[in-house]
């Protein structure tokens, strides 16, 4: 009963702040709302008896990624604090795409019945996840790390910190 009340409280927070991200015109407020939404989502993991995932959700998404988002927004957006109004065609495309996506999500969730938990005890401590990741899913895991490495190298290249640029910087 108590967990039911907690679920609805934090579900409401997650939904309200997720709406704020889209509806608020100020990008900084939007980013902070996304943090609140992520945090409420972490509470869902705790209710599903997966505290490890909850902690990772907060550390990685709310703690690390969103700080970088805020950093970039604040750094690039010093002058105008409000975004310019969007054009009608952009609004139309945005609304139709998200509506289609929402309908597809509801359809497939209903079709494959993923709205209830799998049977049996749900073990999600660090040991279980670590063993699973390095035995069953070692290939996708390493693929993701190579993908991230490629992204880092690409970012370095785009920011111009290559050999030639460095030489110019020094002189």
């Amino acid at each position, binding site marked *: 009963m108590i967990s039911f009340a907690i679920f609805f409280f934090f579900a409401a927070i997650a939904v309200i702040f997720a709406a704020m991200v889209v509806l608020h015109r100020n990008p900084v407020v939007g980013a*902070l709302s996304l943090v609140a939404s992520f945090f409420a989502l972490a509470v869902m993991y705790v209710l599903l008896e997966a505290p490890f995932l909850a902690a990772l959700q907060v*550390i990685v998404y709310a*703690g690390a990624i969103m*700080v970088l988002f805020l950093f970039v927004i*604040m750094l690039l957006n010093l002058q105008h604090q409000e975004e310019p109004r969007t054009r009608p065609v952009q609004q139309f495309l945005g609304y139709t795409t998200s509506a289609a996506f929402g309908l597809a999500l509801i359809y497939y969730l209903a079709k494959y019945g993923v709205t209830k938990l799998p049977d049996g005890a749900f073990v999600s401590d*660090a040991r279980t996840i670590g063993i699973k990741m390095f035995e069953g899913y070692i290939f996708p895991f390493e693929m993701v790390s190579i993908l991230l490495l490629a992204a880092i190298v690409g970012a370095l290249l785009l920011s111009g910190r290559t050999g030639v640029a460095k030489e110019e910087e020094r002189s």
Partner: protein
Amino acid sequence: MHGIDWVDVGLSGLKIAVVLGAMLNVTPIMVWVERRGSALIQDRPGPNRVGPFGLFQSFADALKFILKEDMLPAKANKVLYTIAPMFGLIPALTTIAVVPWGRPFLLPGGRLFEPIIANVNIGILLIFALASMGVYGIVMAGWASANKYSLFGGIRASAQMISYELSLTLAAVSALMVAGSLSLPDVVWRQTGSFVLFNVVKLPAWNIFSPAMWIAFVVFFVSAFAETNRLPFDFAEAEAELVAGYHTEYSSMKFALFFMSEYMAMATMSALITTLFLGGWDIPWYNEPPNALGFALSVLSFVVKVSALLFIFVWVRWTIPRLKYDLLMKLGWKVFLPAAVINIVIVALFIAKRWI
């Protein structure tokens, strides 16, 4: 649904009251220590008029904070400006809940009393998760003040904390690998007892005395200064460059909340360093009996270690000048991050060879 264990609820309430009381008292005591300590280091008297040794100066300060006018800048974002100080305070107050502060013992009646508020098996992750929320208080304050110096303070804080969180977490991984657990009581239990270093000296089995941990300890210790925004890494404030950084526009109790969260974050970090590297509540060369006496002695030992670390925080602040900002970033990314990763490999080698 089973019945509620009221004794357990009562004990939890008691533990929360004790820890919360201690944390709230850290600020006035540390302010006094900081002011008297800085005076000692700079060879001047310091506050010595209010009460014996100026001890009541902090209470006078608190009264001043409460009575001051609460200013709100005209262009500030009112909601964010108001909740920013609270956002800073909550992580500083809550992280201490998973740190064990004494040896567990059996109460009369056969109930095990564990001196820790929340004994969760992901203890350290909870600390890092909540600590990573702490930066939002500073960033929000910096942005909502609508002041360019505040904004720079906020931007600097976000870059700095992201950088040093990585080395802090990776340095902690070394200690967790040795314990084989994410739970902080396990980390402390692993460090009880003693071992013989190089067949010469008998040392307590604290992580800091193990050669595999030295790099991790240095990285964690220095990164702790950066995470708590203390000199030599206080770039979010940097009064010589940014007026007062992120809290330039704040006054009255809102400013006091930032002040409190800084000292509480210091206390939490000291407790974490103690737990991960200095044996937690363990007393060196002494086997604490599993009763109330052992509990009391272990709590005393924990408090002594944390206080010593807090004094080192003050000592460092008034001894080492602020770094340059590019140096801070270089140190974080090019020195501490690789060092912490190398140390993980070293610890893995030690564990594989069973030297530890």
